[in-house]
């Protein structure tokens, strides 16, 4: 597991690098178009501030966006104990626990490292799952925390938002320019193409990163509980009930245990989660090897 953590830390650095490059390129094109280096610097500073705020406030933001409420032990002893025991097994500090009022079963973990982390489950999950299934789901979420997936996800979230903002800014500048400078035609075209492509690339990187982590969290979650069947049957119940949230939000979709958005079949390229059937099959295989 420790190699997973290292590789995730490396992945975080790579992600930062690629996105900085992308942001730098966009800012440069913007500066070239406006024919002023000041614009480039200005955009980069804004982007930096935006990214840092996103990274540090992202956890609270994603919880607030999804309408989650923090609980204490007395509010839901069952959930609290499951989380507490799993945190002990994984050797993690106790994360904050949140509940979100929604009838569909789902859960997510967020934060930047194990010391600043939170898990959140829906009321639907608490109602539908038995203790072992609940344990399976939360072991999966705590694996995300332990393996620093939450940090990668948080970075991806903040950086995708930044690219989105710069691209938006560019398109606006193109629409609202006062006087046409003919010598800028080429840059203008590059700018428009970049402004459209960059957010797409950003989102696709974000999704690819998130999908791969799901299988791994399933596997290490099963290792924690030593009972893959718990998680497998939880996933099966989710396949029956559907994990679609009433207030599904695209920007936080990749945090969740199962895809919270409608239209799961559109395309594999644009999905934050691998297909449920596949995840169940993999877990069952682990169980039968025991």
């Amino acid at each position, binding site marked *: 597991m420790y190699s997973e953590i290292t590789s995730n830390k490396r992945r975080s650095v790579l992600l930062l690098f690629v996105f900085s490059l992308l942001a730098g390129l966009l800012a440069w094109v913007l500066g070239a178009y406006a024919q002023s280096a000041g614009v480039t610097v200005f955009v980069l500073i804004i982007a930096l501030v935006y990214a840092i705020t996103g990274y540090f406030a992202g956890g609270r933001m994603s919880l607030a966006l999804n309408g989650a409420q923090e609980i204490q032990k007395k509010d839901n002893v069952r959930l609290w104990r499951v989380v507490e025991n799993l945190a*002990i097994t994984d050797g993690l500090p106790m994360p904050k626990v949140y509940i979100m009022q929604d009838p569909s079963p789902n859960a997510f973990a967020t934060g930047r490292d194990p010391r600043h982390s939170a898990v959140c489950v829906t009321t639907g999950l608490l109602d539908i799952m038995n203790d072992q299934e609940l344990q399976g789901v939360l072991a999966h979420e705590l694996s995300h925390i332990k393996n620093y997936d939450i940090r990668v996800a948080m970075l991806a979230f903040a950086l995708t938002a930044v690219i989105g903002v710069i691209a938006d800014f560019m398109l606006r500048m193109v629409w609202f320019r006062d006087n046409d400078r003919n010598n800028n035609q080429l840059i203008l075209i590059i700018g428009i193409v970049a402004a459209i492509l960059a957010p797409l690339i950003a989102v696709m990187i974000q999704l690819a990163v998130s999908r791969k982590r799901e299988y791994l969290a399933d596997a290490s979650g099963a290792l924690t509980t030593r009972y893959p069947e718990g998680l497998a049957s939880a996933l099966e119940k989710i396949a029956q009930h559907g994990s679609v949230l009433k207030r599904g939000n695209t920007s936080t979709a990749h945090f969740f245990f199962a895809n919270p958005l409608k239209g799961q079949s559109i395309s594999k390229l644009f999905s934050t989660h691998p297909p449920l059937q596949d995840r169940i099959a993999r877990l069952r295989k682990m169980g039968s090897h025991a």
Partner: protein
Amino acid sequence: MTWIIIGAVVVVIILALAAMYNGLVRLNQQANEAWSDITVQIKRRLDLIPNLVETVRGYAKHEKTVFEDVTKARAQTLNAQGVKETAKAENQFEQTLKSLFAVAENYPQLRATENFQKLQDELTDTEDKIMASRRFYNGVVRDFNTKRKVFPTNIFANMLGFKQDKEFFELDEADQAAAEKPVAVKF
């Protein structure tokens, strides 16, 4: 030129030794922490016992031997030192606790009281926590022992002051059977 090469080799060896040493220190530290977590949970369980014994005694005064056994086993666990002794005392204590609950089974009125139910609930929770912390501890110990034995650390581990493997916190038979069939993880 030769001096530069010799110097470079020495630097590389020192760096490698430092990395090995730090790795061992980190795991050693983690194992100690994990051990103290186990003792915290064990202590928490022992703290519940006097109250439980009093509650059961209120309904079953004549079952003296059971109360004495539990109290004795509790004291033994409380005084146990080191991993092996604690594990042994713990297992013994668990047996006497089982017989205490077996006694309680015969008194439906007792089982119906809120106090008894609360104690039982707390005990189950602490037991789960002992198991959880034990699993983490054994995992860290396994990592530490493996690190001590793999090449090239095995050559230097003694020299660096890590002379012995750490002891696992051993399980009783039922748990042992479950642990011997670990989950196979395949990707």
